[in-house]
């Protein structure tokens, strides 16, 4: 039987990060991927000759900078290409266009509301302060509040003193964001409906909340925690899409000595006397390992890869109660040219970043209303990205790929099912784009649709939830994925978890993979610096 120090189940970005760190820490490491390519949800596929689609995940911001350095990613081709504009078309042909010139952006805001210009600066500053305060928490295992271990008590105390060191406004803003609604938060600053809709759009990504739901502030904050070259809240497209990025991770992991095996689905984790001893593949092969790490979501980690009877009842129950409720779809287009905006035309520069179809909070909230009742939105929220304007290698000359992140499309439809509703839903997306960019339909060469059901089927993410467990306060930090199990361990010795269902959560962040590797190496007595 093959034998490794560590086996990682799942070659998504967290599995790759985890495997790279374990290999770097000296462990003989094997990463097992069920599909024919690594990357999990962060893949790029050439679905039409010359057109590269970021099938699922499509942009980069939250990746922890330490990972870039510690795994020496620039040596392996890491190349996050700056998005230089942001564009928010309004419902009435109006728009907000932000460039890299801050003063130009303030003038653009004043065009909509003189009040909102310095408010925008205040908002940015306040959000930066909260992000600065919270970011260090991303890079550590949450302290175990249920433990009497002195080390945990010290960690808890240091967390408390960190909070106490914040100024009142920052701490208050943090609490307002972590517990309140994004609509309330942005309402305090702004008048312009277009601007508010735009900013609040990041409060609903991947989550079954509307901008007026309590808890949407947390989602907004989470999506503000990223950076591009030190600039908070800024996004990039990786060269070759997010699949280009995970290929970089795979090369880095291999350079540290990790082995990657493709088309190697794991059937179950092998255990003996409450201890993991290896894995069994679907083809019956057994591979032994001291450490087995699941990069899958918590439902699969605890209820499928191992027999729930081997686990404490309360944990099993907590995992069963964990909310997934996927609401996001991807609709990707191959285009014959750039869409034309009624006012600005088909200028390339307006598409060099996200194009936000969410022109007001009302619009977003109405889109959410449908989801509450098990329907998909008639007029969905769409986050568009024409990556080929930034990375021309994504499409042939003069042609483009358009990635559309779509909400709301609830996993559980009250009527019909996704195999029937897939194309009608995509028709709604296309019709919405047609409204904002008349003539859009004529540009479409090909359309690819990924509903929550497809996401679950293809990637194994339960209910198609892109975060492997929703971003709800009771499912974060101390409680992610379950109370008492937020430190990447499981009740089975040698069995660990490192997916987005663990702290701090989803997005192409890599923190779960890195934090879990630290925990594993620490438990083995070989902590890394």
């Amino acid at each position, binding site marked *: 039987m093959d034998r490794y120090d560590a086996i990682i189940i799942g070659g998504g970005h967290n599995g790759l990060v985890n495997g790279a760190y374990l290999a770097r820490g000296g462990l003989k490491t094997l990463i097992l991927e069920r599909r024919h390519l690594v990357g999990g949800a962060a893949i790029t596929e050439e679905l039409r000759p010359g057109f590269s689609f970021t099938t699922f995940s499509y942009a980069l911001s939250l990746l922890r*900078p330490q990972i*870039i*350095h510690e795994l020496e*990613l*620039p040596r392996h081709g*890491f*190349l*996050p*290409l*700056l998005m*230089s*504009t942001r564009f928010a078309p309004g419902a009435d042909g109006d728009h907000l266009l932000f*460039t*890299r*010139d801050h003063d*130009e952006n303030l003038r653009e805001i004043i065009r909509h509301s003189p009040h909102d210009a310095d408010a925008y600066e205040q908002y940015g500053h306040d959000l*930066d302060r909260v992000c*600065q305060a919270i970011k260090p928490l991303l890079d550590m295992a949450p302290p175990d509040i249920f433990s009497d271990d002195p080390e945990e008590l010290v960690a808890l105390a240091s967390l408390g003193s960190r909070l106490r060191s914040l100024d009142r406004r920052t701490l208050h803003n943090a609490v307002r964001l972590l517990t309140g609604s994004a609509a309330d938060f942005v309402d305090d600053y702004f008048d312009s409906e277009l601007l508010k809709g735009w900013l609040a759009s990041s409060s609903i990504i991947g989550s079954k909340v509307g901008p007026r739901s309590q808890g949407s502030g947390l989602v907004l904050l989470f999506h503000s925690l990223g950076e591009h*070259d*030190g*600039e*908070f809240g800024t996004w990039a497209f990786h*060269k070759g899409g997010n699949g280009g990025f995970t290929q970089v991770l795979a090369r880095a992991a291999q350079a540290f000595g990790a082995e990657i095996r493709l088309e190697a689905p794991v059937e179950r984790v092998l255990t003996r006397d409450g201890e993991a001893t290896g894995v069994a593949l679907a083809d019956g092969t057994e591979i032994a390992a001291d450490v087995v790490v699941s990069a899958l979501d918590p439902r699969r980690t605890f209820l499928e890869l191992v027999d729930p009877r081997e686990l404490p009842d309360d944990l099993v129950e907590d995992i069963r109660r964990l909310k997934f409720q996927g609401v996001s779809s991807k609709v990707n287009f191959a285009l014959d040219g750039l869409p034309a905006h009624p006012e600005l035309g088909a200028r390339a*520069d307006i598409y*060099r970043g996200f194009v936000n179809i969410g022109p007001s909070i009302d619009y977003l909230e109405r889109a959410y209303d449908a989801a509450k009742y098990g329907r998909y939105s008639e007029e969905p929220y769409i986050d568009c990205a024409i990556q080929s304007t*930034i*990375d*021309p*290698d994504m499409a042939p*000359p*003069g042609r483009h790929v358009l990635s559309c992140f779509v909400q709301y499309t609830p996993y559980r439809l009250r009527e019909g099912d996704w195999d029937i509703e897939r194309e009608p839903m995509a028709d709604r997306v296309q019709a919405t784009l047609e409204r904002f960019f008349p003539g859009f339909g004529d540009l479409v060469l090909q359309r690819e649709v990924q509903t929550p059901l497809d996401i679950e089927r293809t990637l194994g993410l339960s209910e198609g939830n892109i975060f492997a467990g929703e971003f709800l306060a009771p499912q974060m930090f101390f409680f992610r994925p379950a109370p008492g199990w937020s430190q990447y361990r499981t009740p089975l010795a040698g069995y660990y978890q490192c997916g987005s269902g663990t702290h701090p959560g989803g997005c192409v962040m890599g923190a779960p993979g890195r934090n879990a590797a630290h925990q594993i190496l620490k438990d083995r007595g070989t902590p890394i610096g």
Partner: protein
Amino acid sequence: MIRTTPFHPRTSALNETGLWQHWSGHLAASRYQSSDKLEYFAVRNAAGIFDTSPLYKYRIAGRDAERFLSGMLARDIRQCPPGHAHYTTWLDERGFVLEDGVIQHRSVGEYLLTSAEPNFAWFADRVGRMAVSVEEVSLGIGALAVQGPRSRDLLARLVPDTAALPFFGITTGSIGGRPVTVSRTGYTGDLGYEVWVETPDALAVWDALWDALDGRGVLPYGMAALYMLRIEAGLMLLGVDFDSSRFAFNDAHRSTPLELGWRWMFKGLAEDDRPFIGRRALEREIAERTSRWNMVGLVVDWQDYDRVYSAAGLIPPKDHRPIHEDWMVYDDERRRVGYAASTMYSPVLQRHVALARVRPDLGRPGTRLFLEFTVDHHYEQVAAHVARLPLYNPQRKTA
């Protein structure tokens, strides 16, 4: 009055910012749109086009041209056959650098030399009785740099010989029906070419070139992006990383080629008996090891950098815009051992980097040093290590 380049009617139509700077008496776009970094990435990821016409250009030709230049230039021009170009330098008698430039050997006995500052008199006054003419052709020739991974494929569609052109090779062809010379040279450290045209042909060539490039991910880039690219490429900038010895008031403002990291230019010096200006001084410097400096790359330790800013309650800035100021460099015992004149945050390397002069014994890659700058209006010293130049050196550059 400030001049415009032969391409100005086109570049000015593309410049959305209204930002221009003066370069050798010409208007040069600082950046064409709101993001210099976008232009930088166009070069690193696809291709960029840059109007490099303001360079000084001299045609040096005649039966004795090679003999003349082999005495004037420190690098052995006899090793540069027709169809090739050299990055070269010329020195004073004390072995200090007057300037650097690229010389193209266009045909037997005919050369085109480019430089950043006027050098006509220096060359012309030294012709003596040799059969050589030195001609000032700066305004007669326009030049466009096309740089980046896509540059070869794009240019080869217009000038097929480009496809097989070696690093520092030159060839001719036509673009838009006008004759051009294409050299595989540039100031970006990437795969790239420069297209040389007669001024009257400039707009026709631009239009044909632009038609072929437009929609293929190519952006025009300005001085701001150029200055980023050249630091990563380890290419020195006159007036920043070194000064011309001719106008220096003291030796602190003078550099020898060895001090600038150009030892590779003199690999064959022992076998080459050619007399050239500065040769004796150069030989003495090599023999007696009297170089005062070693030009190196510095890569800043990211953890230490974050530490000093975080301790001050600040978000560590990662600003890609080059800083052309002297930042002091210290050794482990905090003795001053050099200075960095060009510093930036490199997006491709994801680190703060610098071009620095350090004491010659400290030039070994990996040597731990400290770079000093201010945080909250006081000095901080942050760990860095010595790295070989160029800091960024993709295989495609020479492949």
